[in-house]
């Protein structure tokens, strides 16, 4: 049976290397509206996210996406399985299971309709083997940077996953 230490070694070898570069389709107003509804239901979505005339009079000067919006939903993407969650997935046994332990997003330029977002991820840290309630585990910290078509920074997300 494969040992989780092999998975940890594979992950450690990937530290600092880019993986999973993705480029979104142009963001459309319907996707923004869908997000605004889905995250606030049953309260109505904020007008800033669907009413252009209203949004023009706000400091945003037009419709923007809510912070937290995912521009990659329904993206046709052949590389979805790349990245740290894929390492070890072809095996059975320790290290082939993972959970999202959380993360922190920092926001910069807002996302506007028509924007094309490029996402680039890398592994920044891999813990030593630890023993958790789920057995032998490895914690992996990734950093994903989003930029728009003007090369402006949009969001930096540091996520923590646990492999066990």
């Amino acid at each position, binding site marked *: 049976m494969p040992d989780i230490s092999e998975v940890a070694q594979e992950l450690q070898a990937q530290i600092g290397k880019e993986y999973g570069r993705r480029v979104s389709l142009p963001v459309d107003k319907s996707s923004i509206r869908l997000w605004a509804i*889905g995250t606030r239901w049953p309260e109505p979505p904020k007008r800033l996210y669907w009413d252009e005339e209203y949004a023009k009079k706000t400091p945003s000067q037009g419709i923007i996406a809510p912070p937290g919006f995912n521009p990659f939903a329904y993206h046709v993407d052949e590389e979805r399985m790349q990245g740290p969650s894929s390492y070890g997935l072809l095996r059975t046994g320790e290290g082939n299971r993972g959970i999202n332990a*959380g993360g922190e997003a920092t926001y910069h330029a807002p996302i506007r309709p028509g924007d094309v977002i490029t996402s680039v991820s890398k592994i920044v840290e891999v813990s030593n083997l630890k023993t958790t309630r789920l057995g032998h585990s490895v914690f992996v910290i990734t950093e994903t940077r989003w930029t728009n078509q003007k090369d402006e920074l949009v969001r930096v997300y540091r996520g923590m996953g646990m492999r066990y």
Partner: protein
Amino acid sequence: MPNETVYWEDVTEGMEIPPFVRKTGLMEWNRFAAANEEHFEYHMDHVAGKAMGFPNAIGMGNLRFAYLHNLLEDWAGEQGRVEVVGCQYRGMNEEHDTLTCWGQVVRKFVENGEHLVELHIGVRNQKGEETAPGRGVVVLPSRG
């Protein structure tokens, strides 16, 4: 949803901000799944949730993360903005849970001319259990 603009000068360390509260279940999870393309059976179907070892279907961590964005966004208002949102997932979101997203100011500071507030944030269920403790930073308007 607060309507009055909150100014940086009116904020004090230790103050609590208005909570964002949702009772969640399949309706909320399915609507969020549609927005985030997060269609996993254990978020939609109790049989599938039980097969995974959960009490039933469970809610998405990403939805609690989105609720925390709403908490801060509602407080900062359209004159402010959300700069940082983070949390750790410590517990499950079960069906019919009432989730209360809360925030408490821990620090006020000025950086690069922007007036910022850092908060402890989290998502408590109706039993008082903290399921997603974290940190937020918002930019607020200043009276100058």
